[in-house]
């Protein structure tokens, strides 16, 4: 048996992957599993282009990210990989995919995995840096999220978007933010946004 077969069996035995029922979205290929499971690095665009089933890599990544039968670690990395396919500024299918992923997250679900998924989308939207003010408007509400990790991620995402329209809501949140981790993330964002606006 080749190494890919071993990997897949290990994954199945470990309960990490579920064999799909017929007609469902195809499970990740062996190359996709390898590309979306490194421990201490993230895949490069070249690795994604080559190993993620094409020709529509963004569509495939979105598909993997939304498929609940796919291993959750792969879903997360698939979300985070989408900005690789953005243009400058980010537009088109990559941005659309991220917005779709965000819209599919239930605001009433506060489970750990949902928070982690939300953080991945916020982070991806931030580095996508679309330049569209609507993206800032999408992230601002998360500055008031119940999770400190989401609030910190939103501050970073707004920083990465580099749009000065984020300054006012960040300042407003800073006034009543109680958690030092988030206050520091907001301060850092405001500092960097000041550079963006110059």
């Amino acid at each position: 048996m080749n190494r890919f077969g071993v990997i897949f069996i290990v994954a199945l035995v470990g309960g990490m992957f579920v064999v799909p029922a017929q007609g469902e979205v195809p499970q990740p290929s062996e190359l996709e599993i390898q590309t979306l499971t490194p421990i201490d690095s993230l895949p490069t665009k070249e690795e994604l282009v080559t190993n993620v089933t094409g020709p529509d890599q963004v569509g495939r990544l979105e598909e993997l990210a939304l498929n609940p039968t796919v291993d959750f670690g792969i879903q997360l990395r698939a979300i985070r990989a989408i900005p690789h396919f953005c243009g400058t500024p980010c537009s088109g299918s990559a941005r659309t995919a991220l917005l779709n992923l965000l819209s599919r997250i239930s605001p009433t679900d506060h489970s750990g995995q949902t928070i982690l998924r939300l953080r991945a989308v916020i982070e991806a939207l931030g580095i996508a840096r679309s330049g569209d003010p609507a993206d800032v408007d999408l992230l601002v509400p998360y500055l008031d999220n119940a999770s400190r990790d989401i609030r910190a991620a939103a501050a970073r995402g707004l920083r990465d978007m580099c749009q000065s329209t984020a300054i006012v809501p960040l300042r407003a949140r800073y006034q009543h933010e109680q958690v030092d981790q988030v206050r520091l993330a907001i301060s850092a964002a405001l500092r960097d946004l000041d550079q963006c606006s110059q």
Partner: protein
Amino acid sequence: MSHRTLSPGPTSRPLLIALIISGVALGGCPGGNGNIGDECRSNGECDATLQCGQGVCVPRCARAPECGDGYSCDSKGLCHLATGQPGDVCTSEVDCAPGLSCQLDGTATDAARHLLASCAAQYDARPAGSECVLDADCRNGTCALGHCLDLCDETRDCGSGTACMDIPRVEVVDTTFRGCVQAKGNIVWSIPPATSNVLLPVPSGARFAELVLSVDDLVQKVGAQRLISPSGRLLYTRPCEIQGGGCDPDRDYYANLVRHEAQLGQSVITLPSTPKAPLETGIYRIQVSSFRPNGTAGSAIPHVTAIVRVDAPTVLDLHFHFLDLDAHPCEAGFGGARLDARAAQAGTLFQNDFVGELQTIFAHAGIALGSIDYVDVLDHPDLDGLDVADAGSLLALGESPVGINVFFVRTLSPVGLQAFGPNPGPAGIGKTRQSGIIVGVDTLCYRSWTQLARLTAHELARYMGLHHNVELGTYLAGTPPAQQHWADNIDDSDESSNNLMYFSEIGGIELSPGQREILTRSGVLR
């Protein structure tokens, strides 16, 4: 030979030792009935395990310093007073009379390129074992490996905790002398930044050597240009910078026998990096430099710290640091409670599934987990949710020079990274921007503690000098043949996903003999 049998002469050793030893007498074969403290006139009057010193039976010696300054200790455990006078040829500190030391004669050597030495007055300077830069910093006139040391013929001539070894002399090309070297733990010293060509002396018996290169300007990279072994083998050449025109940085990187990469602020070179290039006795020549991020020469002056290890330890100490993990979204994975230093020490999941699995994994390499300490890090909220770009700020909090610091953070960004650390990391030095590894606890939202232990062990092993047994790049469709073996430099570690060093989190815990060899030589062990 410049020894005589009896001398009550003064010594610089503690009074008790001086009193006991200064009267050592030889005469007849030992084998009398005298016990410790009984009067005697010769060794023969004392029990076979004792000798006659200062007119009383005293224990025999194991090391010359037990006898006092200017004495040797022979193979029977008997002390002898040295008679070497200024100018007399010597090969060991124990050849020279009290108040004198055996000092190297400049560049003079014998036919085998061993440096010659003679007895000379001691300096009013630091004792053996002290840190030094120049020979004149040392009472006995020899500074090597950043420390004052005594010349010797055999380990019996050396103080407790040191061993007699061949040491390459940095100041005189292609020569060696025998000196007493710290036998346990890391020997750490700074090499003055006088030149970009660094000489790293590796004594006989050394199992591990390392250079830690750093620059104060954190926006500049620091690293090696070239690394040549004592036998002249080229172990490393800095990869070219920009792909194209015959340049392939990845090809160059993987072609090197020693894996090393210039990095912002600090980088590490570990030897041996592969069983294919065993550690050699002699002087390694390393050309070091700072670089701008674009690869051009930098302006920062590299600081160089050297580490050499001669013993073969097998114990790995871990220092667990917990950032503020309060109200963590993956708290269910902690057993529903806040994870901190106290909870980790008492928690069944942490102890059994995480620490227990780490113990199992490292046992495969013949390494036992030693002391584990637990510390809360609650005064750095800016690092609770860590962007990997800030990893240096967190790792600099790793104070422990022995073992490895492990930092548990709330979240690790970019999302998807589960652990992060230097490859290799600095052994024997704490408080640097690479002094530890980082584990994102957010992984526990979708993985078990046992799985977290495997990826933590993977990162610990990278810190200790192992590399991925195979890289993701190897699997790119259409990968040219030259790149199809982007793997470690260890012949017996295959590309199996069962290996601990498999790049993916879906991997095993196996280690090949070659990998175990590199791991057990790591300077992080105790």
